[in-house]
């Protein structure tokens, strides 16, 4: 279709101008950091290759992935129940699922701490089999799991809801048990939602700071390390660490977004 005028109307124009503020804010911050590091490249490289920094970045990424794996196990069944069943008190359950989104992160931290500390309801039995959360890797994963669970569950639930019930019913009458219908029809058609829910949850998990330092200040995740550097060594060093993490995140999420285009290419057609 040929347009007579290439000038967008005044509404779109003003919306674009106002809305660009958000984009500009992020771009400005990234540019400032990037410029500073590029002008002082040898220093950046020396900080970024410190074993402490590399360890913290790896720890953050792996703990985040670990939390996502646990969410896949516990979150998918919950998302299916919420998507496909009606029961008394469903609204309450939905609100409970969303609570971690609403809470200030320090409060989430306290909640995680009192559950997973050595004397906590969950921490105690685990400590008896040798799994300690306080000041340890499992504590980081627990905090990440808690704060990222709503993002995962809601994204996956949306995916399940988009698969027509009729498809599942048709599979049932063709001889599939409910689980077979889930595995062969619902799951493959929601792959993209599960994948994007996982990315969301991972992003949310690796970004967590407040909840993590309460249960596990050590070993240091990247946020803890940046804050520690900021308060002890100053802005120059903490910015260099931050830039290292920014680069890693950008690369990883670019790869994941690229992968997502290949995942579950059919579910748009459902």
């Amino acid at each position, binding site marked *: 279709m040929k347009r007579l005028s290439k000038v967008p109307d005044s509404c779109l124009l003003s919306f674009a101008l106002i809305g660009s503020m958000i984009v500009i804010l992020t771009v400005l911050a990234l540019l400032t950091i990037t410029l500073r590091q590029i002008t002082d490249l040898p220093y950046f490289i020396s900080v970024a290759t410190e074993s402490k920094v590399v360890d913290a970045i790896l720890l953050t990424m792996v703990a985040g992935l670990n939390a996502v794996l646990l969410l896949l196990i516990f979150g998918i069944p919950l998302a299916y129940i919420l998507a496909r069943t009606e029961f008394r008190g469903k609204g309450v359950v939905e609100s409970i699922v969303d609570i971690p989104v609403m809470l200030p992160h320090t409060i989430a931290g306290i909640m995680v701490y009192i559950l997973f500390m050595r004397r906590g309801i969950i921490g105690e039995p685990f400590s008896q089999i040798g799994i300690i959360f306080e000041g340890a890797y499992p504590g980081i994963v627990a905090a990440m799991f808690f704060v990222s669970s709503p993002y995962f569950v809601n994204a996956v639930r949306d995916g399940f809801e988009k698969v*027509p019930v*009729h*498809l599942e*019913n*048709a*599979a*049932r*009458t*063709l*001889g*599939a*048990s*409910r689980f*077979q219908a889930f595995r*062969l*029809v619902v799951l*493959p*058609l929601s792959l993209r939602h599960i994948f994007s829910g996982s990315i969301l949850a991972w992003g949310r998990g690796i970004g967590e700071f407040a909840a993590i330092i309460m249960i596990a200040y050590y070993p240091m995740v990247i946020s803890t390390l940046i804050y520690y550097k900021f308060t002890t060594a100053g802005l120059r060093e903490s910015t260099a660490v931050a830039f290292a993490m920014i680069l890693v995140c950008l690369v990883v999420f670019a790869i994941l977004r690229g992968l997502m285009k290949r995942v579950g290419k*059919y*579910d748009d*057609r*459902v």
Partner: protein
Amino acid sequence: MIEFDNVSVTLGVFRLNELSIRIKKGDYYFIIGPSGAGKTIILEAIAGLHHPDSGRVLIDGEDVSGIPPEKRKIALVYQDYSLFPHMSVGENVAFGLKLQKMPKAEIAKRVDAVLSRFGIAHLKDRAPYTMSGGEQQRVALARALVTEPDILLLDEPLSAMDQVNRDKFVADLRAIHKENDLTIVHVTHSREEALSLATRVAVIIDGTLEQEGERDEVFRKPPNRRVGRFVGIENVFDGTVSGTGAGGSVIMVGGCNIRTADVIPDGCRVCVFIRAADVSVRRAGMTADDEYNCFPAKIEKITPRESYYLLGISCGISLYALATEQEIKEKGLVLGQAVSVSFNPSAVHVTADDCLSPSLSPSF
């Protein structure tokens, strides 16, 4: 045999009220009713996808409430075809057979056989969403039948098709019913589908079973005005029985005395049903073969329909009749023309509304 024994289901605003029907083995059973009457739920109750709030569903005399859908040997084809979009046509059809853990070679053989049976062998590797509605419907039917179910449930299978495809598909369904000795339950709002395929018909309006019986009985002898309107009887009148004898009754409708073969007690208030197809229109003055129910009339309206014309005729009462284009030309029927209409007393179906109190004579 499928039996509904006082089955009630509530789902949102829809409610099925104590439905009791029996569907015999080998029936091509139609459940018809206005759109949105929740007919799909009846099918889902047979398939075990919905559990009744009360009452029982029995298959071959056995209460099936504890049997999950996958063990009922029932196939269900939805209006939207419900093909699995992440599988090719061949994989869709093979789905049920794979679940039965059938050997691969046997699966391939059966899939090919059923695809050729429906003339869609060339579509085997296509993705469902690249095909037309008619093709998707064939795949859905092939997928349902390849598992050799005892009962086939069809939910408005023809509603999304154009007329040409629909006629082909009706022929297919008729053949499938004969070939496989299947019990088919078909829900629709379309009377035409029921007329061309059904052996028995149930009419459900607002969640209540209004009538159940042989196809012709349902379409010719509705039990009340609601069903009469729904099954498409064009002429429905209120009247009063003014005389009755062994051979039938005479009913006063407006200014006309209409004779019916039904015997109704004198004085009853009744509802009279006459199908437009049973009303014949002749040039004025030409005598009819039958001596009863012949009235002088005038043509007031000529409305073209898909393949015929609907004539609005006034003979004291407003009556509808059908005519082909050929008839209209031959008889020279035009608006305002005087004609004579007639219909056989056996074509006049009557239901009694109120027989307890004799109708009052008009007061002034």
